[in-house]
């Protein structure tokens, strides 16, 4: 029971991070029907931006207030990562729109390789680590041979995720920007007839997806304390799996899929083998695609003609 509880806590934490990344996949797929394979690497870039920003703030500028540093790093990473993603879309994808369907996909794979190698060259092959932060731990249960703990880090990760998802949900549902985004997703030609700049809306989608991936990046770095230029791939594919599991194109699906993948992975590690935890996550991808290709929240839409 204690082990179960502990894995639940760990799984939700990890799942939050996957969910944040998964939104970027699902939004971009929803609006242009393309899997942005570089999204995982955009996430990885954000972890490095976060690391560098944190070290610059604390070591060079001498900032001491931890909450201030955290918020500053979060905002800085969101802005810079969004800019990166905006440029990627402009340079590598926009021109290929209207080309054959595989073209932007191949371009995305190229961009993924480019990003991981760029960071590899700039930052070196070794793991980069940062001093551990927010290390206080709350004992949930004590005695009985296994102490269940909940770290401040974990609370912070889940709280920040929940807060940003709420803000993001409001943006998509209640603002004219979000409405334009949904309109382009449902029928971009019609949206253009109504005066919506579709290209701008697509750029915006990349920017929002990247900002959320950057939040995931900051939290990931905070959680593990180590980053590497190859860290984009595995979390990226897992978040993609989460998006597929939730039903690609569905925003609630991406979040739920992220949580499920996080839970499956941690429970698998705890009860079977942590060496094969990636197998568990990726098996889900295969199983979903074979038996439930539209995912949990795939669209069973009634569309009359």
């Amino acid at each position, binding site marked *: 029971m204690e082990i179960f509880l502990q894995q639940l806590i760990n799984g939700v934490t990890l799942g939050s991070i996957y969910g944040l990344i998964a939104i970027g996949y699902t939004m971009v797929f929803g609006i242009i029907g393309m899997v942005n394979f570089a999204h995982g690497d955009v996430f990885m870039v954000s972890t490095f931006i976060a690391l560098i920003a944190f070290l610059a703030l604390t070591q060079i500028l001498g900032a001491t207030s931890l909450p201030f540093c955290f918020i500053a790093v979060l905002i800085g990473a969101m802005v810079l990562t969004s800019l990166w993603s905006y440029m990627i879309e402009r340079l590598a994808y926009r021109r290929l729109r209207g080309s054959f369907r595989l073209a932007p996909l191949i371009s995305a794979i190229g961009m993924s390789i480019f990003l991981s190698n760029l960071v590899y060259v700039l930052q070196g092959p070794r793991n980069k680590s940062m001093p551990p932060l927010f290390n206080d731990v709350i004992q949930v249960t004590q005695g009985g041979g296994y102490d269940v703990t909940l770290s401040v880090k974990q609370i912070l990760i889940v709280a920040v995720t929940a807060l940003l998802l709420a803000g993001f949900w409001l943006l998509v549902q209640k603002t*004219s920007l979000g*409405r*334009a985004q*949904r*309109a382009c997703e*449902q*029928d971009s*030609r*019609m*949206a*253009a*007839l*109504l*005066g*919506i*700049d*579709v290209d701008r809306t697509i750029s915006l989608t990349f920017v929002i997806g990247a900002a959320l991936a950057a939040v995931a990046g900051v939290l990931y770095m905070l959680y593990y304390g180590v980053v590497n230029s190859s860290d984009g791939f595995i979390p990226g594919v897992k978040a993609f799996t989460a998006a597929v599991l939730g039903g690609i194109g569905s925003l609630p699906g991406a979040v739920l899929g992220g949580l499920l993948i996080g839970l499956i992975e941690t429970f698998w590690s705890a009860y079977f083998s942590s060496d094969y935890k990636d197998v568990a996550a990726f098996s889900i991808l295969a199983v979903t695609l074979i038996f439930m290709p539209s995912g949990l929240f795939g*669209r069973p*839409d*009634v*569309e*009359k*003609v």
Partner: protein
Amino acid sequence: MKAALPKLLLSVHGVKAFYGNIIALKGVDLTINEGEIVALIGANGAGKTTLMMTIFGNPRAQEGAILFEQRDIAAMKTHDIARLGLAQSPEGRRIFPRMTVYENLQMGAAISGQAHFAADLERVFTIFPRLKERSSQRGGTLSGGEQQMLAIGRALMSRPRLLMLDEPSLGLAPLIVKQIFDVIAALNKEEGLTVFLVEQNAYHALKLADRGYVMVNGLITLSGSGRELLARPEIRAAYLEGGH
């Protein structure tokens, strides 16, 4: 009947457009004056919808000029053309299926802004009370007639100078068709709204229109007042046989 000197609102000169290598418009000429209802009739595949879309820049006119209030819009982007005051209820209606009726109307007002949104919404709900009842329902769950009302209502939300309607009667029950044509007539008569109407339902369209054009295979073959065209034997034979 109308003002003595009609003011030209839209003119299309020698427009050619292609789908891939296939020529869809072979040099189309057409004009619409302010305050008119102009009908474009023709068989399926004649190029009527293509002309509607070409006016909005998608597909682009490869040759010729499209002038809206003397301004050449042939090379402009679709969303910029919409911002000039052209609105379209397109073929197939293209309601956003996973948005509510209200949100669809909000999308229609995307360019006209918040300032008179409430007034415009009230106007659309007065014209189509059914939409008010269905306000919080998803667009995809509406009936065909309701979707057509929504498509027209959405177009009206942008306060257009020129309202373009592509086959508003397609697939609808006769009673609803009559209702929709009455609305078009009233908008034109009471508010002076200029309407460009594409129809296969030639009888209704020509009866309503001030002027009409007939399109065959990507070319305008006949034009004249609605009444003239209705009286022509070749029109009767080609488009009105079998009653109405």
